[in-house]
């Protein structure tokens, strides 16, 4: 039983450990509700020096400073959107991990669906195309040939 308890403790620790975060304990806000908001905002912001990481998971010094700034803005009373806007004002849309829907990003957002629709239309057309094997009546010569082949050679009569 003791072994079982120890094993489950180890498993649980491993499970918890897989969600990595770069947020250091001393960065966190005392208020858990505000801290949770900071985490959510941080997951939408790109680490501008590492590009494919959020500032929430990056250990780059600049990402750490951006996390600190996010928490500062929250404490100053900013809404989540206001904090994101604050960063966009300085870094442009580039800083957002999920690009906003603008004229420039329309193709990015809807291009795949347009392509899927086009592909679907082409496939539908292909499937609905009339079959090319049409039934034609046999010519009199062909009929005679069939008759000759199916006649029983022993009796001379049809089977």
């Amino acid at each position, binding site marked *: 039983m003791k072994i079982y308890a120890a094993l489950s403790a180890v498993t649980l620790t491993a499970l918890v450990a897989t969600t990595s975060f770069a947020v250091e304990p001393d960065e966190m806000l005392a208020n858990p509700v505000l801290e949770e908001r900071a985490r959510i905002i941080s997951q939408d912001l790109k680490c*501008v*020096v590492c*590009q494919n990481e959020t500032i929430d998971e990056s250990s780059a*010094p*600049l990402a750490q*400073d*951006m996390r*600190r*700034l996010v928490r500062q803005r929250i404490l100053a009373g900013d809404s989540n959107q206001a904090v994101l806007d604050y960063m*966009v*004002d*300085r*870094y*442009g849309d*580039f800083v957002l991990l999920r690009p906003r829907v603008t004229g420039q990003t329309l193709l990015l957002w809807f291009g795949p669906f347009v392509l899927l629709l086009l592909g679907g239309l*082409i496939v539908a*057309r292909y499937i609905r*195309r*009339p079959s*090319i094997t*049409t039934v034609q009546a046999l010519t009199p010569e062909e009929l005679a040939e069939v008759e000759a082949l199916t006649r029983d050679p022993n009796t001379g009569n049809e089977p």
Partner: protein
Amino acid sequence: MSDGTPKTNSGRLTAIAPILIALLLVAVFAKRLIDIQGGLDPNQVESVLLDTPVPEIDLLPLPGRGPGLTTKNLKGEVTVVNIWGSWCVACLSEHPLLMKVAAENTVPLHGIAWRDEPEASLRWLARNGDPYNLIGQDPISEAAIAFGVTGAPETFVVDPEGVIRYKHVGPITITDWAETIAPLVEQLRQ
């Protein structure tokens, strides 16, 4: 219809569409590749801060080295602001140029010591020369984020009204200075 290839116009279009699409993609990728060969850096992002007022900053000086750097210092004349750090290897490569600019006294050059120990900044300047007029410390990237900096070195040209007119990412070369920055400084003075 019996030979299986419909000879209608739309049928022909369907047949050559994949080739047309492939050619179009080749053209798009080829243009991008040629642009990159020609010096376009795909990682470089146009700053949204161009033609906007410099951010409010109030940075502490390096100990024993005159006053720090505030927004007030970036108004009244054309200035150049350079973000650097003693840890920044690329900053060394543009340093001789900055020293030359300072020696010629063409334009006030201010520094922001980004995420650096003040002692380390001072040691670096003692070793490599100090081209800066004013220097402000930016230990927790307050100014760096306000300027939308993504890496050191970065250099900004600010006009007399305190509006950012140019941003250069990465080390400045002699060509960058002679062909872009110096003419811009001259033009903004008028």
